[in-house]
């Protein structure tokens, strides 16, 4: 390298020396006691709070950050995307008009819609079949955003979606319209046309009940 042309980076290098331990730190013992102080403070604070909670006192102070999941649910953000549901009209029929927009936009192709002619001439179509395969769904929320009728939402707050088979992960229109209905609906045939075994096939809120 030519003299006088040292790289600017070389001058801006900052040397950080590793901090040397002082005598007291090298002794270990004071530092061990410092550490013990922290853990012991936590221990007795939490012990006191747990005892107080058992006696019904000081409930506003948390003793642990643990959320006891099945009994205690964490609050969800209002925009959290949970299991889908189909919204319904006042007469209990699905709001969906079978426009196929959600099926088209779905990047995972998990939505299957079979539209049918609606008896009301003001409504073009209704979904004869509306399936969402949750085993495939990526929870992107595009179906909710694309829907012109506000017919599909992801606001049920249902998170514990699990099943013993891929088949059981498929939601049919009954489950989508009624979030209370939960799998496993082994008795419920998922073949077309849907014959929901619950309520002897006359489920309230179903598109069938309108006729």
């Amino acid at each position, binding site marked *: 390298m030519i003299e006088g042309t040292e790289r600017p980076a070389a001058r801006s290098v900052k040397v950080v020396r590793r901090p040397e331990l002082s005598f007291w730190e090298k002794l270990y013992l004071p530092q061990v006691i410092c*550490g013990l102080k*922290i*853990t*012991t403070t*936590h221990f007795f604070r939490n012990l006191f709070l*747990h005892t107080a909670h058992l006696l019904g006192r000081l409930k506003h102070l948390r*003793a*642990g*950050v*643990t959320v006891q999941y099945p009994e205690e649910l964490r609050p969800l953000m209002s925009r959290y995307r949970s299991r889908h549901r189909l919204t319904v009209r006042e007469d209990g029929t699905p709001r969906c008009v079978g426009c196929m927009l959600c099926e088209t936009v779905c990047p995972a192709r998990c939505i299957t819609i079979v539209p049918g002619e609606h008896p009301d001439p003001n409504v073009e179509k209704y979904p004869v079949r509306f399936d969402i395969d949750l085993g495939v769904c990526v929870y992107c929320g595009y179906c909710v955003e694309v829907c012109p009728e506000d017919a599909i939402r992801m606001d049920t707050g249902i998170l514990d979606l699990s099943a013993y088979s891929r088949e059981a992960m498929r939601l049919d229109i009954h489950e989508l319209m009624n979030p209370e209905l939960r799998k496993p609906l082994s008795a419920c045939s998922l073949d077309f046309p849907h014959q929901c075994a619950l309520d002897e096939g006359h489920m309230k809120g179903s598109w069938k009940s309108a006729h």
Partner: protein
Amino acid sequence: MLEVLIIKIILAAIVLFAVLNLAGFHTWVERKQSALIQDRIGANRATIFGVRMLGMFHGMADVLKMFTKEDIVPQGADKSLHALAPFFSVFFALVTFAAIPFGDQLVLGDRVINLQVADIDAALLYVFAMLSLGVYGVILGGFASRNNYAILGGLRATAQMISYEIALGIAIIGVIMVYGTMDLSELVRAQGRLVGGWLPLWGIFTQPVAFFIFVTAALAETKRIPFDLPEGESEIVGYFVEYSGMKFGMFFLADFLETIVVASLATTLFFGGWQVPYLMPDGFHFPWGAELSVPQWMYALLGVASFSIKGLAFCFLFMQLRWTLPRFRYDQLMSLGWKGLFPIAVANVVVTAVVLVLPGEAPQ
């Protein structure tokens, strides 16, 4: 003769019952104490008929699980040694308790019972011999598994035990010099004297340096964090990597048993064992002149309670240390043992000797 035998068997049964239950209890304590330290709740799901008991049944569930698990012996392992190793570990941890006095004499009728399973003259030597043999199980376990990680763990255990046993032994020499006995019950009795009429002559006051060396080295003997290099679960899994089922459970149990051994030893040597401050065999003699007479059975019971409370406090302290400190690096461990504890222990012996020999300076 038969009566003596029966008494000894009862004493041994009491000690075994207490110690084994405490070791089982330790699994619960470990879970809950760590949970409280780390702002968690800890295992609480195991129930018996809907009763949770703060998760105390998890220990039982663990034992059931371990007993019903498959016992795997690796191919090429030395089968007999592999099976023997966990038994060695537990056995030597258990027999150590025989020499530890957990109370003073109990007078029943005209019979005087020493609350100690075995009255050994050189109890201290016996205890340390058994404590040292405890590592045999670990080494055998590592050696017989025919697994590189296991043998690494076993070798680490060997090196660690040898390094720390020396510091441990030399730290004890100071105590032996001060009290002039190796009989543990005599040693505890000697700690009952008062200095200046108010300060009990406990080991912690006569040998404070030895106490810290002893606790550090003894923690290293228990192979628990911060000295858990033989196990080192994040690097080599350890000497019991090839063990499953209850054989693994026994190594686990031996770990807790050794913690209890060390806690009781620290109590016996440095905190006056079963001594209650100002409690003489006929009752309390407070330094401000007050006196309170206590029946003999009460005196014996208070002694046992005192020993238990001190021992449990040490168990708590060790558990707290285990959840406070990170693991030592191997070179740090060796340099702490050889460059730190060992010279300080030797210096402690020399200073103690000088102080004892100087006329009028001796604490006796």
